[in-house]
């Protein structure tokens, strides 16, 4: 897997690795009447990359995908694939294939007929069609079911037929529209890994649209988080999680505690933040574009980075707070503690249950002390 190191995403518009962009989306907008579905989006995607468009429903991710497939025309901007302008090509001439959310399998054709359909359109010789269909079905492990009709297949099998059908033409770009949304949780997780393995084998550039953050984090090399038609952030999964740039991204991906405060001073590499709940102040690593002293800021901390202990911390400790445990959610692998601070605000702290008896017994109603290292703090603009 071509996973890039953490925090690699600096420039949003250049593909990682410095190579020329394979798919270039330049200032693309799409309006339907008064509604702007996609608003001036620019993205560069590298050859062979597994790229995810992530966002809540209505954020424009599917519209962007449909423009790549050719089902919608951009109101403005350009789409370039391998140097070729896609806008000039109708869907049936684009070297792009799509896997539909509904799978869109032709009900009147068998599995093999569905997979062969695209090759027949290109007038590929019969013998070659047979060989390539057999290969594609072998890739998704469906060879024994080639003669079945779509309605004779389970949901997971249909999903694989759809994948085989969209891969068999060896497109330059494969678009996947919520490909796993119809599967149940266990099968979905298993299929995510299969999808990654298949992408590795075929080496085709994948662009996946999903509203499921876990799915995007699992499969993608890079993720573009979308918000109301715009790109909020483009980065590797770890950078999106560990270094979100805005409150929206921080809250959309995973759980987060956010404290409003005021930057008081910049001390070496750290920014000190005044905040009522922390008697000795908060601190976070400074950012290049970071706020100056006196600015209102947001400080975000992921729940699993907050230590929880019954003993008080030595005075003068930064990023320390005290409160009372109001709820404990036991989730098997982890437990989530909801702690009400003296100000009434609730902070969430998550802990891995390493020991079978639950480790240090912290009960509901106990007075606890929370703390986290400076590096765990993420500074966001207010």
């Amino acid at each position, binding site marked *: 897997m071509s996973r890039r190191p953490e925090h690699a995403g600096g420039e949003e518009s250049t593909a990682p690795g410095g190579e020329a962009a394979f798919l270039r989306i330049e200032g693309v907008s799409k309006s339907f009447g008064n509604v702007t579905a996609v608003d001036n989006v620019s993205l560069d995607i590298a050859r062979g990359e597994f790229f995810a468009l992530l966002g809540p429903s209505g954020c424009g991710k599917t519209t962007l995908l449909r423009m790549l497939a050719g089902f919608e025309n951009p109101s403005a901007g350009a789409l370039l694939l391998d140097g070729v302008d896609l806008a000039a090509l109708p869907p*049936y001439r684009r070297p792009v294939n799509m896997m539909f959310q509904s799978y869109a399998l032709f009900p009147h054709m068998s599995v093999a*007929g569905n997979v062969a359909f695209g090759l027949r359109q290109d007038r590929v010789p019969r013998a070659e069609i047979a060989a390539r269909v057999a290969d594609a079905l072998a890739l998704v492990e469906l060879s024994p079911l080639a003669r079945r009709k779509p309605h004779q297949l389970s949901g997971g099998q249909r999903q694989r037929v759809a994948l085989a059908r969209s891969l068999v*033409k060896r497109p330059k770009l494969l678009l996947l529209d919520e490909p796993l949304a119809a599967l149940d949780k266990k099968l979905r997780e298993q299929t995510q890994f299969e999808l990654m393995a298949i992408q590795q084998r075929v080496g085709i550039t994948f662009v996946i649209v999903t509203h499921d953050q876990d799915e995007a984090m699992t499969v993608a090399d890079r993720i573009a988080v979308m918000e109301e038609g715009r790109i909020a952030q483009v980065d590797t999964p770890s950078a999106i999680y560990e270094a979100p740039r805005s409150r929206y991204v921080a809250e959309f991906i995973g759980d987060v505690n956010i404290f409003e405060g005021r930057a008081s001073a910049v001390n070496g590499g750290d920014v000190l933040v005044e905040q009522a709940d922390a008697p000795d102040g908060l601190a976070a690593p400074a950012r290049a574009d970071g706020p100056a002293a006196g600015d209102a800021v947001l400080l975000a901390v992921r729940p699993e980075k907050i230590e929880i202990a019954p003993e008080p911390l030595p005075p003068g400790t930064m990023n320390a707070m005290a409160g009372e445990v109001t709820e404990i959610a036991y989730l098997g692998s982890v437990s989530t503690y909801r702690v009400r601070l003296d100000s009434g605000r609730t902070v969430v702290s998550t802990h891995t249950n390493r020991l079978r008896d639950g480790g240090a017994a912290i009960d509901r109603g106990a007075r606890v002390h929370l703390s986290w290292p400076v590096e765990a703090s993420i500074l966001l603009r207010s």
Partner: protein
Amino acid sequence: MRRGLSGINLVALTLGFAFLYIPILLLIIYSFNESKLVTVWAGFSTKWYAAMVQNELLLDAAWMTLKVAFVSSSVALVLGTLAGLALARLGRFPGRTLFSGMVYAPLVMPEVITGLSMLLLFVALSWARGYWTVTIAHITFSMAYVAVVVQSRLLTMDRSLEEAAMDLGAPPVKTFFAVTLPIISPALVAGWLLAFTLSLDDLVIASFTSGPGSTTLPMKIYSQVRLGVTPEINAVSTVLVGIVATGVIAASLINKRAMVIREREAQAVVSD
């Protein structure tokens, strides 16, 4: 869930079929009546069928009716499918509301008015009334029914099926014939049969638009009934019912066979 017939289903089925088919059954039974009196049973006989075969006028009318019904329903199928396609697929084109209203108007228009306006048109064009004028008039009103059937099927069809075909390299026309048409084919068969049946039993519009030598069977039956119903008419009607039933069964068999053939072709690709 149990798939068998429960008591209530059985009653509903029996009542429904009884309501639909008892009159037709009576007509068939009385066509084998010995007596000349239609309502008095006097024993089994096929003599009215023999009489019918001898009756040139009646046979001519029946042949005319079948010709009109076949041609008009086939043309209406093509035109109605195109109209249904435009309504379901073109989105909001200028004049869409007007167009859809005009397509549906013949459904609610009194037949007398349709017939009269067709008559006025043919007179104005000074076309000789006959086979073609009846056929054209029948196309006019039956294509509306086809359009409705086809449009409603297209609206329930998953649009992404057509998008998938285009995505896989099929231009729009190819997509229509390779994907849309096979999927909506049951609706097309239903639309054609509907148009065929409507044409077969139309009396009013045919009366306005037919001329000498283009008398249809309903017109012939109606004019004869005024002189008194003979079992001969029952015999003709029974034959007609037989033809329609055969047509419906054939259509469904053809449809089923086509599916099997497509299946085999798809399989041939793998087994090659």
